[in-house]
């Protein structure tokens, strides 16, 4: 109930508050993309004085927000569906891998795509079956709004058809975390956990490590070469009649300076991916 009222209030109030200041660029969507856009937004704000408000809420939520005029820009970590593309422009701003992560204290360091698929279908439920200790596997997934989840399911073929509609094939018993951050916290606190998150947001300080998939390490080099298959684009989307400040910010994201920041943050810039 509370949430519904809050949502209503947000929908009614947000365009008003955003419209009132002309020097603010609003952007919402993928929690994976917001990780890097928050950094870019801050540097942009220091440089030009224009505020950039970044809110991570999941790719699908971001697309809906732009469609309804709640925010100027949207972030997506998956390709848009055809019906989502009407009246919408998209720009690929970077590329990123999807890392399969486990707790650092877990000795396993490689899984095949088939094994990952079976784990998420709960056909494999013990680390012993994939070369680890005799311990249960706690698989963690993202909410359905997540672009990372959508790309993860597409790449691994974790889809099935129910009533002629394509739905997720990830087991209903899998734990669900909403947002990259919460999934990371779950894995850092649970030695049996397995999850998938944006590769750029894996950092060594956390108690989380990225696995090799099919024997190939999850590195940017392997994503360029196409060997590491779990990769997807980072997209910024906007309506065709979007305000000028938003377009200026996109131009900034595509500039060499911003693309350098994207590389420093551990993502793959557009220039790199064209090599």
């Amino acid at each position: 109930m509370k949430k519904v009222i809050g949502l209503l209030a947000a929908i009614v109030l947000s365009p008003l508050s955003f419209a009132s200041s002309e020097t603010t660029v609003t952007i919402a969507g993928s929690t994976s993309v917001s990780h890097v856009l928050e950094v870019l937004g801050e540097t942009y704000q220091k440089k030009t004085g224009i505020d950039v408000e970044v809110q991570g809420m999941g790719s699908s939520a971001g697309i809906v927000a732009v469609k309804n005029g709640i925010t100027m820009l949207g972030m997506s970590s998956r390709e848009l569906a055809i019906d989502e593309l009407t009246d919408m422009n998209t720009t690929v701003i970077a590329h990123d891998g999807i890392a399969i992560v486990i707790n650092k204290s877990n000795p396993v360091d490689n899984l095949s795509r088939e094994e990952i698929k079976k784990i998420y279908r709960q056909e494999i439920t013990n680390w012993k079956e994939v070369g680890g200790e005799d311990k249960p596997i706690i698989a963690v997934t993202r909410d359905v709004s997540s672009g990372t989840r959508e790309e993860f399911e597409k790449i691994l073929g974790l889809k099935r058809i129910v009533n002629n509609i394509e739905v997720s094939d990830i087991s209903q018993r899998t734990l669900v975390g909403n947002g990259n951050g919460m999934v990371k916290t779950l894995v850092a606190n649970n030695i049996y956990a397995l999850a998938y998150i944006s590769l750029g947001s894996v950092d060594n300080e956390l108690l989380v490590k990225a696995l090799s998939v099919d024997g190939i390490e999850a590195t940017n080099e392997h994503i360029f070469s196409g060997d590491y298959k779990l990769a997807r684009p980072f997209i910024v989307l906007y309506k065709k009649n979007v305000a000028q400040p938003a377009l200026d910010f996109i131009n900034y994201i595509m500039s060499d300076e911003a693309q350098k920041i994207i590389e420093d943050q551990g993502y793959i810039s557009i220039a790199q991916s064209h090599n």
Partner: protein
Amino acid sequence: MNIGNKSIPQTAQSISTKKQDWVGMFFHFLFICSALVGVISLATIAWFLFSEGLPAFRQAGVIDLVFGNEWLPPALFGIFPMIVASLASTIGAVVIGVPIALLTAVFLAELAPQWLANIVRPAVELLAGIPSVVYGFFGLVIIVPAIEVIFNIPAGNTVLAGIIVLAIMILPTVITISETSLRALPPVYKEGALALGASHIYSIFKVLIPAAKSGILTAIALGIARALGETMAIIMVMGNAPAMPGSLLEPARTLTANIAMEMSYATGIHASALYATGIVLLVFIVILNAAILYINKKRAY
């Protein structure tokens, strides 16, 4: 002089009556407006929920939606596991939280020495002001790992973790209202019981608590409503798996968590199914309040 003396009180009087009328009318209007805010909000929310949620009931069918076991948007919209999760977590929270709260209320109202009451009461009131996301984080880093160790299970994100967090969250509501209703009792109740030779403890359980029953029931009802409506803390500790939980040591998703996690992006029939989830929640709250009203009424006659 004479004329002046006479006319001044008259004018003053007429002004004051006029003023009184105006002020009276203003406040009358203000009272009505204030009273209507709640009613209008409720009516708007209910209308909104039903107009948005009915398409889902129509397309998926009331039975398939309410008693369906699989939540697979956009194909299947069964929310029965979530109804079970919401009820289980709420009932569990009440079973654990209410006795603790009631004993605390009795302690504060009857037994506690002044200096101790001065520590416990502000602590309880502070508990009410802590944001639910903080409760959630506390649950995630303290209760979830504790459950893993105590029950020797791989993941502590379970219904039990939700129950414990909710039990703590409903404490301030139940304690404060129960204590107030115990304090509101006329002193003759206690004096009479003691004069008849009853012990202090006997008079508390046999006289004071039964006499304050309607207030205590209201406190419990508000506690239940709080537990049923809690969202953020639950999302953080209960694991949110949409499958039917087999026991208290399995993850589950409540009705509120389902709405919160998917509402921001859902479209079409999926969004409608989430509003339908809200309708089910509203129905539960209505049934709960009606039950409390009924119990209190029955007692009054």
